Structures are given as structure tokens and as C-alpha cells.
């Protein structure tokens, strides 16, 4: 379908008009891809095609704009990512294939992120500086210090990105990150992200956190910070762009607190059923349609094509092998195990 051309004067007033329609369509497509993938993973978890599920349905509105703006590559010249387990849409926006996440869900040996060893959505991609995602809460805010130091030492505009949830900010690692990123001796180029969905598993944030905004933790350090509506990908796009520009240029940290929904609860441990919270994709579609920036047909096409891609991928993964018992011994040490290493598991 041909789209209406909006006059430049109107474009400048409306942030939606500041992004190219092609980019908006791409963002939508990737958000749908992320949602369809997560729904497939939940279905697999419930259907016995995997075990525990944890993921990011509801965070696509923030995660896709983030993934699209990452300076992707390997080494200090590129961005490092220290992510938590709700980051599938960041990965898809960076170019990851849904089939690989499905492989991890099914624990096949073809899982490129962990060879069937880790929970789903636990990425590890050295070619893109995606550091190993761990189920431990908030430790990524400690490890990000290291790549931040590496980049602070280099002549580069590469930055380190760390994300995690609101509940984890109670952990000391979050505060380690704030202190180390703001050391006068060596400020670090870290984009510190907290995705605030209002819960830590079943515990509401407002019962445990007296601070008005998590981003207020930036104030004692005189560090720039913003709390944004993470359910709006356009607001997220510009907030991330501003933050990245600052960190790339100033070589100092910046904090974003993104308020988002959590559409399927914490994980499969709480049933993973859909809950009644604002849906960033529905909101985005409404915003695009009312501005004639996308057609209903294109929206439907995104849903249909992504569902089909997941169907095909799932069918493929079902033919792929699981790890073998002896695979537990690979990668214990980089240089392998000596013959005398105890392998019997007892007497």
C-alpha cells in the first residue's frame, strides 16, 4: 500500500513523524517477531518441549529500539551487552534467528548459546559482544564494569550496555555498578538500563522500594538519567539514542529506567498465562494506524510471516539431536581434562 506523505511541519511536532515509516514498520515487525517467539516458547514449556520458561513478552517496545541501535560487532570498538533473561527482542533486533532460541528451549545440542545447558533466553554471542546471560540476579551489573573499563581504556566510541529488572536493583551489584561507573579516577562508558515492570516474581515493587524512581539513584552521582515509557517504542528510540550519544561522546555513564508491562508473569513457575496489562504492540499498532504509517494488511503480514517462521523453525528443531551424556565433560576447561580427572561421580 502507498502511504500518505506527511508535511514536514507536522513531522517535527510528532515524534512518530521523526522516524522513517520503513523503520517504524521494521520495529513493528521485530516486536511481533519477539512476541511470537516468546509465545512459542511458552507453548513449548507447557507442552513438554522444554522445561522452565522465562522471557520478555511486554518488553518488546523498549528492547527492539535498543537492539537496533547497538553498534554490533566484536571487541572494544563495538558495544558490549550484559543482559538479563528478558532480552529476546534485543537479540532479534540485532539479527539473531528465532530458531536458535527455540533450540535452546528444547535443549538440543544445536543450541548455539549453551549446547543445551542453560535456560532459554540465556544468550552468549562473542561475535556480537553479547556476554553470557546468567540466571543469577543482577550479577551482570558487576561484570559490565569490566568491559566498561576495557572500553574506557581504548580510543573507541564503543559502550557497554547493561540491563536488568527493577527488583534486582536491591542487590549490591547494582550499586557496585553505580560506584564503579562514576569513579572520578576512571568514569565508565556504560548505559545502565533498568526495566521496571513493577514486580519481582510475585512481590510488587511498591511494597519494597521507597525510592520514587529507580533512576533517582543517578542523582548522588550527578549522572544523567531518565524514566521513560518503555511501552512506547518511539519514545524508547529517542531516549536510547540520546543516552547512547551521550555515553559514546562523553565516555561517562547514563541511566534509563524503562517502565514496561510484564505480559506473561515472571516465568513458567507462575503459569506464564497472559495477564491484563497494557500491550506495547497493540499500542504501537494503534499509534501507527491512526497516523497512516502502516496498513492493517502490513500488520497482519508481520504476524503471519513471523508465526510461519516459528512454525517452520520449531518443526526443524524437533528433528535435531539432544546432547549426549559425555557432553558434560566438554568445556569444563578450555584446554580439556586430564585422564586422571575424577569422572565417575563417586566410588
Amino acid at each position, binding site marked *: 500500500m502507498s502511504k500518505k506523505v506527511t508535511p514536514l511541519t507536522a513531522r517535527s511536532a510528532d515524534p512518530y513523524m521523526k522516524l522513517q515509516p520503513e523503520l517504524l514498520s521494521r520495529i513493528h515487525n521485530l516486536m511481533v517477531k519477539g512476541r511470537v517467539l516468546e509465545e512459542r516458547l511458552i507453548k513449548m514449556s507447557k507442552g513438554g518441549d522444554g522445561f522452565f520458561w522465562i522471557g520478555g513478552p511486554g518488553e518488546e517496545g523498549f528492547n527492539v529500539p535498543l537492539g537496533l541501535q547497538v553498534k554490533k560487532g566484536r*571487541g*572494544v570498538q563495538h558495544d*558490549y551487552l*550484559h543482559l538479563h533473561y528478558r532480552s529476546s527482542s534485543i537479540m532479534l533486533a540485532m539479527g539473531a534467528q528465532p530458531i536458535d532460541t527455540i533450540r535452546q528451549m528444547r535443549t538440543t545440542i544445536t*543450541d*548455539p*548459546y*549453551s*549446547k543445551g*545447558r*542453560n535456560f532459554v533466553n*540465556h544468550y*552468549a*554471542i*562473542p561475535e556480537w559482544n553479547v*556476554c*553470557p546471560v*546468567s540466571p*543469577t540476579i543482577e*550479577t551482570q*551489573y*558487576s*561484570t*559490565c*564494569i*569490566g*568491559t*566498561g*573499563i*576495557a*572500553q574506557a*581504556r581504548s580510543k573507541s566510541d564503543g559502550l*557497554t550496555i547493561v540491563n536488568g529488572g527493577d527488583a534486582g536493583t536491591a542487590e*549490591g*551489584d547494582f550499586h*557496585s*555498578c553505580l*560506584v*564503579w561507573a562514576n*569513579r572520578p*579516577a576512571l568514569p565508565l562508558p556504560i548505559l545502565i538500563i533498568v526495566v521496571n515492570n513493577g514486580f519481582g516474581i510475585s512481590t510488587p515493587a511498591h511494597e519494597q522500594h521507597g525510592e520514587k524512581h529507580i533512576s533517582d539513584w543517578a542523582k548522588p552521582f550527578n549522572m544523567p538519567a531518565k524514566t521513560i515509557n518503555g511501552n512506547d517504542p518511539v519514545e524508547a528510540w529517542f531516549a536510547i539514542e540520546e543516552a547512547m550519544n551521550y555515553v559514546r561522546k562523553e565516555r561517562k555513564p547514563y541511566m534509563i529506567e524503562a517502565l514496561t508491562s510484564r505480559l506473561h508473569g515472571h516465568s513458567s513457575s507462575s503459569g506464564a498465562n497472559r495477564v491484563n496489562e497494557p500491550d506495547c504492540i497493540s499500542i504501537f499498532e494503534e499509534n501507527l494506524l491512526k497516523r497512516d504509517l502502516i496498513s492493517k494488511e502490513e500488520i497482519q503480514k508481520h504476524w503471519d510471516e513471523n508465526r510461519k517462521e516459528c512454525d517452520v523453525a520449531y518443526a526443524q528443531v524437533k528433528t535435531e539431536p539432544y546432547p549426549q551424556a559425555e557432553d558434560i565433560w*566438554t*568445556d*569444563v*576447561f*578450555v*584446554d580439556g*581434562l*586430564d585422564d*586422571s*580427572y*575424577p569422572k565417575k561421580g563417586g*566410588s
Partner: protein
Amino acid sequence: MANMAQAIRMALHYGEEKLGVREIFGEDVGAPLGGVFTVTQGLKTAWNSPLDERGIVGAALGLAWAGFRPVAEVQFVDYIFNTIDLLKLCGNSTWASGGKFPTPMVIMTPTGSGIHGSIYHSHSFDSIASKIHGMKVVCPSTPLDAYGLMLAAIKDDNPVLFLKPKALLRAKGEELIPGEPADEKALKDMIDAPIGDRTKWKPRWPDLTDFTVPIGQAKISHEGTDVTIVTHGRLAPVCLEVARDFEADGKGSVEVLDLRSLIPYDWKAITSSLKKTGRILFVNEDTEISNFAEHLFRRVIDEMFYELEVRPRLLCGKAVPGIGLSPVLEYASVPQKADVVRAIEAILAEPA
């Protein structure tokens, strides 16, 4: 002869110059102090971190993922307990990522008793460290081994926990570090910072050369035929002294096997020595109940039962919550030379 602190310092300097070490850090590691045991004095890439052990280990892990081969210090091993899950991440990152993320990093930390360090400066961490699978663990007992193990640790693509026996950091060795001047005072003048104002001081490093002690390789520090002692760290020189005394007094021929590496450990060296002596005593200062040597002890029974002339024995720390400050309490808590003597006498006296 260099002491162990000087030996490690020289190894780190060699690492800076030849092995690509760019970040050596921890609490009070940089100028002016250069570490509470002076291990990092005068090093050009050493810097002070916040007082935050989790941040230190996390930073080291991130630097390792970026390929920087960092060496980080936790000031005393007693402070490392709040970093356990980060140490586990160090150990499991390669495995969990399907081999995609090597983790070349060194965490060094003073361990054990012997300086009247009371409850929080006397811990042993050896046994807990041995449970962080995927992490290599070394613990030297001589300056030369400390030098060689540190170079091996820096070169290794796995995370290495380098346990420094704090009671031995000031102990001098019997062997020269390759490149070390023979004159002890000359070395001190070259690389020890002066007392007082150090702002203008710069070390003059000897022309050091490579010397690597392979991780996983034990050393027979005293050959013997009647009984094997398997030990490491602070108690290794004590066991060596006992072996020499027994030899001099004609009380028995004691073989001392200094493990040097706890993970991976040199099982072949243990079995080889035991085949020769038929008697084995494990000696370390970590506490009883899941002591690292209890694993070796079990394995000896499982795999070497018919080589044993008498039951194996373990001499180790008492299973109490801490080591008391009073020397009476400390000596009652961790093995002393007299305890080693008694244990050897007993194992030699038992009829086969």
C-alpha cells in the same frame, strides 16, 4: 633470595611486560601502598579499586571476556565469601556458553593462618575453592613456585584462583627467580619501595625471564620411601622440615609431595608416590568436614586400596567457626609442626 611477595611482584611485572597484562587492581593495590603485603608495589598497571569485592571479581570477569587477562586481588580470602556466585560465574562461563567464552583471568588472594590474624584474617578457602568447578586453583609454597605459577596463571585461558599463603609471603626461598640478582639486598634496593615518601620512587626491575610451573603438576620437595605426605601452601615447608628432621634423626624416609595445584590436582604424582611408600598422610590447614583432602583420601581408598600398607590419614584444621586470636587457640585450631611429627610417627609405627 626473593621472598614470595617479591616473587609474585616480579611475575606480575613480567606479565605486564611480556604477557599482555594491562589491569592489576584491587583494594590498596595501586600506589602508594602497592598491596597490604606489597605484592603489587611499583607495578605500572596496578590501581586502586573501590572497597567492593563483588565489583572487583565482576570487573575481572568482564575484562576477561574482553580479552584483557586481568589480575585482580581480593585483599584477604576472608573477604571473598560475598563473591561466591561471581566466582561461580567465572568458573562456569566457558561451560555455560558452550565453550564460546574463555575466561582468562587471575584472582589472587592471601589465604590461611599464621599471622595471628584472628577470626577474619586466618580463613582457608582451599576446600570451597575446589568446589568452584571450571576454575583452576593454585597455591605455592616457595617464591620460585609462586613466580612460575603466576606466569602459568596469567597465560591460562581459564580463570585461576591464586591462593597466596599469607604466612609465607615474607619467607625467602632456596632458589633464585630467573633473572633475580643473587644479592638479596640488591634486589630489595631495586624493587622494594622506601618507607615514607614514595612519590618519586620507581622500581628498577631485574632482567627477568620466563619460568612456568605447569598448573596441575605437583612437586616432590623431599624424596622418601617410607611414607608420603601430600600437602600444599603454608604447611608444605613445615612438612619439608619434618621430613629433613626425620632423615637426619634416622626416624624414617618421608616423601613430601607439594601439590602446588589443587584444581586440577596431580593424581598421577600422588599414586606414583603411594605405590612407592604404601603409607600416605594428607596435611593442610583447611577445616575437617568436606576438607579438600578428604576427596583425595576417598579416592586413595577407592583406587589405591591394595597399595596401602596402613590406613591413610588426614591432618587438618579443626571444624570450628573461626581461628581465635590467642596463640593457644590458633595453634589448637590449625596443624603445627609438632602435629605433623606426631602424625608421621604414628603412621610409621603402625604395622603393615
